[in-house]
Structures are given as structure tokens and as C-alpha cells.
């Protein structure tokens, strides 16, 4: 049965057939490796090495700095050539540690010690996850050791392993489920050890029956049939893998932008994250690599690669046979939420997932028209927002109204823009507005942790707002 779940969503061309049967190839980097100290949500890590230092694979290059941060781990052995600012795929410029690869991959002596998770205390498990530099590998990059410490362990009822992989063209999680299901299960098992009352749920979209079958087999092989672990087939639609929608599809509980999954008694981890937790705790191996799907009609030999974090994207394009012709568009990530690249000279980070290259850019030919108020965006929005009204608010720079229309609950999935018959760049304007609002909140300190105080400040601001302005722009 398919857990349908949320209202809204779209059905973009899946494009997964290109690489879904391609087994993951290990790719060893040729050039220098770039380790941005900010490749997760929260404060950047603090550099723990200096220029000229010899480093080993698995060594900590950057230490988590502050309460919300994560370690940065070297994926090769070699010498630190520089610590300088480099551009990432997202366009952000981050302080980065540049390591010259000696191609010997000498491991740090501290890593690779197999452990039995049954004998570890909760504290030891969390420390192991923290030391391994694990962050949410689905794309958000939330530090996992913080996610796994929600405060009250007894309040967590579900540990959801997100194998939906609803973004078109991406097949990394799918291959991982087919090739290394036991490590994903090991990770889930470790996480379940932290939350004694929780049930483990592995959620996979229906269009991946092989992955579902393979995970089921793995559960049998590990003798976990009687364990509180369940497989859950989700209806195939985008954005099924979005955290809020996934939680609703599985548990029927709803959270909004102000809440975390733990507020609904849930911990949601991507399959690759669970895999990394399993490796870190059971095998003592920190997060050094991830799967990157290199695909698209401009790539000669589309492929899934296991890539050392820090590898340059340009190398991956060459490893996949290069371009068949000059592409019009190259995207880091999936086509719905990924970033268009101007140059491929950027490093693979922990939150990278794919590199897509297309001969034709369908968006370039798109000519935006006028909103005809057809309401298709309203039907497509998985957050139940009114994108067309938010768009008008953005056009008039009416951020007050944008927030009143729950604009800050938008997670930029792109569904509204995908369906818009007038071809408006709705998501783009929401991204801008959301950034403006969050900057403003940071500046004025409105984002206080005390919700009552927030309401007071907001209420005051709204009262001062002339009524005519708020009313005039709504239509």
C-alpha cells in the first residue's frame, strides 16, 4: 500500500532510468581537495590544522564551533596547502582548507576500530556521531549529533529513514539501498538504541520496488524481523521526501516551519545519513565520502560515483566521459531544488547529491506572462500556501503581507513554479523574500526564542501598519 499523505505535489519527469541500474563506482580524486568549513547548517567549523601540516584520511580538519556546528573531516592524506576562501556550488564563499592529495590514503590511526553498538552508552554513540562529522546528507546539512539529542529521548516515537528520493534524476540513495542495505540498517539500529520507545520506519517511494525488496531481505538477513522496524511504501510524487510531508504521510502528524520533527515525536534521517551513522558507530569510520549521481543528456557516460568529499566537480564530469556537447545548463543537485552552476570548479560537499548537465535549458525559452489566477499553484503547494498571493506581496515588497500569508513556511520545493501556466518565477521571488525577512528578523532580533515576545513585537508592527496598505495589496 502506498502512504499517500499530503495534499499537493507534482509529477516532474523522473529521469532516474539513466543511472538507476549503474552500480556505484569508487572515484579517487586527482587534484587538490577543498574542504569548506561551512558545509552544514549552523556556525562554521574552526580550522584545526595550519598551512603546511601533514594530514591523514579521517583526521579532523575543522572542529565544531559552538552549539550548532559540525566537524569537517579530511577524506585523503596529504598536506594542507592553504586555508582560504573558496566558492561553493551554492554560490556561497566559505573559508576552506585546501589539501594536496598524496594519493596514499593513509588512515588516521584513530579511525577504523570496529565497535559493538550494544556495548556503547548513548553518550558514546552521540560522541561517535559528532566526531565523525555527520550532517543531514539529504541536502539540509543539519548536524546529526544535534538531531540525535532532542532532549527527551523517551518522547521520540518514530525514527524515519527517508529513502523517498523524490528529486528527479537522483539515484544515489536508491543505489545505496540496493548495494549497502545492511549498513543503513546498522545505522537505524544504532539510532533506535538512543530512543528506546521509538519504532524504526524506512520510507521508500513505490516506484522503487527493488529497493523495498532489498531492504526487506536485509532485515531478514540481519534477523531483525521481530525488531520494531517497518518498511513503508510511499506514493510517488514530488516532494514526498520533504520532511514535513514525510512525517505527515507516515504518522498523520503535522509540523510547521517553527517546529522540529522532534516536536511530533519523530527523528527523520536520510538513508545516506543513516548509512554514515552506521559506519561511524559500528566501524569507526568518519564521513569521508558520499554518492554523487552525474547524469543528464549532455554527459557521455552517466554514472553514480562514490566520491571523496572535497573533490572538484570538474573531475567528476571527466570521470563520466565529459560532455557530449557544450551543455546549456549544469546543475548541482536535482532539477527541482538544485543550483545552476556558472563553473564546475567547485568542491563536492557533504550536502551535494548530483551533477546534472543538459544540452537544452528548458527555462531559458520560457517567457513569463501574467498570472491568470488559475489556482494551480495553490493546488500544487505541499504547504497549502497561496503562491500567487505571496507573489503579489513579493512584487510590492510587502514583506508584512508575505509573512501573513505564511511565506516563511515555504520550503522552496518549486512545485508552484513547475505547474504555473503563466511561467512565473514564483519560487525565485519567494527565495528573495524569505531571505529578506530572515535577515530583517536577525537584524531586529525578532526571532526570539520566546514566542509570546515575538507575537507582541509582531502585533505592534501590524498595528502601526496603515490599514489601507495591507488591504490594498491583497487583491
Amino acid at each position, binding site marked *: 500500500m502506498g502512504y499517500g499523505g499530503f495534499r499537493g505535489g507534482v509529477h516532474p519527469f523522473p529521469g532516474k532510468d539513466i543511472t538507476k541500474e549503474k552500480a556505484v563506482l569508487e572515484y579517487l580524486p586527482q587534484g587538490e581537495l577543498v574542504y569548506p568549513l561551512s558545509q552544514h547548517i549552523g556556525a562554521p567549523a574552526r580550522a584545526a590544522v595550519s598551512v603546511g601540516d601533514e594530514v591523514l584520511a579521517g583526521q579532523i580538519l575543522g572542529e565544531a564551533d559552538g552549539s550548532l556546528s559540525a566537524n569537517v573531516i579530511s577524506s585523503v592524506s596529504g598536506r594542507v596547502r592553504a586555508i582560504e576562501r573558496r566558492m561553493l556550488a551554492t554560490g556561497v564563499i566559505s573559508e576552506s582548507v585546501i589539501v594536496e592529495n598524496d594519493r596514499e590514503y593513509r588512515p588516521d590511526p584513530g579511525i577504523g576500530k570496529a565497535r559493538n553498538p550494544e556495548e556503547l552508552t548513548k553518550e558514546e554513540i552521540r560522541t561517535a556521531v559528532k566526531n565523525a562529522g555527520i550532517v543531514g546528507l539529504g541536502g539540509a546539512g543539519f548536524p546529526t549529533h544535534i538531531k540525535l539529542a532532542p532532549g527527551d529521548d523517551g518522547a521520540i516515537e518514530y525514527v524515519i529513514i527517508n529513502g523517498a528520493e523524490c528529486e528527479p534524476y537522483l539515484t544515489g540513495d536508491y543505489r545505496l539501498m540496493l548495494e549497502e542495505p545492511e549498513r543503513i540498517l546498522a545505522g537505524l539500529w544504532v539510532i533506535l538504541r538512543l530512543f528506546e520507545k521509538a519504532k524504526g520506519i524506512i520510507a521508500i517511494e513505490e516506484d522503487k520496488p527493488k529497493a523495498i525488496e532489498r531492504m526487506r531481505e536485509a532485515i531478514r538477513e540481519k534477523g531483525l524481523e521481530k525488531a520494531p522496524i517497518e518498511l513503508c511504501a510511499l506514493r510517488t510524487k514530488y516532494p514526498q521526501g520533504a520532511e514535513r510531508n514525510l512525517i505527515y504521510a507516515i504518522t498523520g502528524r*503535522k509540523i*510547521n516551519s517553527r517546529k522540529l520533527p522532534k516536536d511530533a515525536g519523530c527523528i527523520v534521517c536520510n538513508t545516506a545519513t543513516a548509512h554514515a551513522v552506521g559506519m561511524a558507530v559500528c566501524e569507526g569510520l568518519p564521513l569521508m565520502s558520499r554518492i554523487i549521481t552525474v547524469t543528464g543528456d549532455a554527459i557521455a557516460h552517466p554514472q553514480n560515483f562514490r566520491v571523496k568529499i572535497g573533490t572538484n566537480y570538474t573531475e567528476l564530469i571527466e570521470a563520466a566521459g565529459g560532455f557530449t556537447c557544450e551543455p546549456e545548463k*549544469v546543475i548541482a543537485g536535482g532539477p527541482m531544488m538544485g543550483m545552476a552552476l556558472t563553473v564546475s570548479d567547485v568542491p563536492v560537499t557533504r550536502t551535494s547529491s548530483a551533477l546534472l548537465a543538459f544540452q537544452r535549458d528548458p527555462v531559458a525559452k520560457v517567457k513569463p506572462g501574467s498570472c491568470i489566477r488559475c489556482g494551480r499553484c495553490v493546488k500544487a503547494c505541499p504547504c497549502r500556501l497561496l503562491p500567487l498571493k505571496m507573489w503579489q506581496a513579493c512584487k510590492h515588497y510587502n514583506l508584512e503581507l508575505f509573512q501573513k500569508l505564511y511565506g516563511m513556511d515555504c520550503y522552496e520545493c518549486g512545485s508552484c513554479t513547475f505547474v504555473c501556466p503563466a511561467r512565473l518565477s514564483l519560487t525565485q521571488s519567494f527565495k528573495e523574500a524569505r531571505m529578506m525577512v530572515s535577515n530583517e528578523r536577525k537584524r531586529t532580533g525578532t526571532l526570539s526564542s520566546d514566542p509570546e515576545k515575538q507575537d507582541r513585537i509582531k502585533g505592534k508592527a501590524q498595528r502601526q501598519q496603515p490599514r489601507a496598505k495591507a488591504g490594498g495589496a491583497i487583491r
Partner: protein
Amino acid sequence: MNELWNVSSSPHVRGFIGTQNLMFDVALALMPAAAFGVYRFGPYALCVLLVAVGFALLTEYTYEVCVEKENTLWDGSALVTGLLLGMNLPPLVPLWIPMLGSIFAILVVKQLFGGIGQNVVNPAMAARCFLLISFAEQMNHYSGMDGISGATPLESLKSGGTVDLAAMFTGFTTGSIGEISTLALLAGGIYLLIKKVIDWVIPVMYLVSFTLFMAVFGGQGADPYYLAAQLCGGGLMIGAWFMATDYATSPVTEKGRFLYAVFLGILTGIFRLWGASAGGVSYALITANLLVPLIEKITIPKAFGWEGQRNG
């Protein structure tokens, strides 16, 4: 570095359905009813339709050339407006009526308010009301055709006469060019539902609320014969399936659509029962259109996960 790749904000893929597809689907869905009207009333009805469509397109084009706006002739919306207006005219109107109506619809109601999507009331309906009020004689001119009786079914119903339900359903009766065949209009409406151009809420709730209103206030109780005649008569079917569902002038919120449809049903009932002139559906539609901004404002839905909470 010789790479010159396109950059744009995500998403990097788009769906296939554009404004044009939606408008042409509506035009296609109107075809059975329009064709039946031409079959029933003869080639002159076709002339009326062609003049209405032609002048709608011409006005759109001329205006956009004059004010140097981008040409939107191919989005199909002027075509739909012209077609709807023509279908809402009696078959024997002089040709200057569709001409004037189309110019009014496109120029005054649509373009002067900002063009597609910006109009406050439905252009075809507003033009029809304008014509009904200004040229009552020409606009109520249904008699004089061979073999077709003078009074429309609703007129005879109002004056206590009897009507032939089967003829009203299939369309062998008197009325405006495109509104006579309930069957053809239903076929078009169902096509739009299947193609997901419209959703069911507005047409179905409109018809349901109208039926309930007539059952309570119509003076005939829940008499199926009376109610069926009211449903098949006049512009109700074309109004419910093609006018009330007009994107620009109907609410986008789910609750709003519901409210709007119920309101339409009640207004149509009032105008039909106690109104002085024909065209109850048209007046109900433009009145309801004017309330859409208000309806939308009070029916903004709570976002996912905010149920029962304040947006702080």
C-alpha cells in the same frame, strides 16, 4: 574558462501546460454547444459567433498595438471571451450587437483593468449585462424564426405554462445561441473536469445551492419537473461550467470557491424568481465577481501544520 552556462533560480524544469493550452481547452469544450447552436439556428448564428470572436481579437490586438503592450492574441483568452459572449446572445441580434459587446468586453472590462487575469468581473458577462440593459429590445428578440416558438422555456415557466424537458435537455428549444443544449454544455464541462482545467467545486456547488434555493423558495416545493426545468433553462449550465469557473474572477482558495458557488446559487435564484428581466445568471455572476476579493481575504487557509494556531 570558456564555459558559458545558463543560470537561473530553481526549479530548472517546468510543466507542459501553459496559459494557451488552458484557454484552447476551454474553447474546445465550448465547441459542442456552439456547434449545436449553429445547427439549430442556422448560418446567421454562426455569423454572430464569428463577429463576436473577430471583434474580441481585433480589439485586443488594436489596444495592445496602441498602448505598446506585448501582443497576447495567442494566449487564447480573447478568443474565449468573444466566443462566450457570442454564445450568450440571442440568434437574431443585429450584427452590431456582438461587435459592440466584444469591444466593451475586451477594451473596458479586460484591458483597462490591466489585461488577462486582472479583470474584476468576467468580460463576456459584463458585456452581456451592458447589452441587456442598453438594448433590451434587440437582446430579447427570440421570436420570428421558422418552426421555433417565441417564448424561451423560462419565460413560459414563469407565466405558468408548460415546457418540454427532453427538448430542453437536448437543446431543441429557444434561447441564446450557446445555452440551449444542456447535454452539449455538460459534455464540455466534463471535458474540462477530466483535463483538470477546472475543479468540481464551483459548478457542482453552484447547481446544488441553486436547486436547494429553488426548492425552498420556488413555490413548487421539491417538484423534480420544475427543478429540472430551472436547471436546464436559461444560462445556468453555461454559467456554471464556463463562466463561474473563469479563473480571473473566481476565488483561488478552496473555502472561497465553496462560498462563492453557494452565493452564486442563491443570487441566481433571487434574480430568476423576483427579477424583472431575463439574464439572472449574468447578473448573479457579475455581482458575485465583485465579492471575490473579499471572499478570498476571509478564506486564506492556514498553512500546513498551523491548524489551530496563530501565525506568529
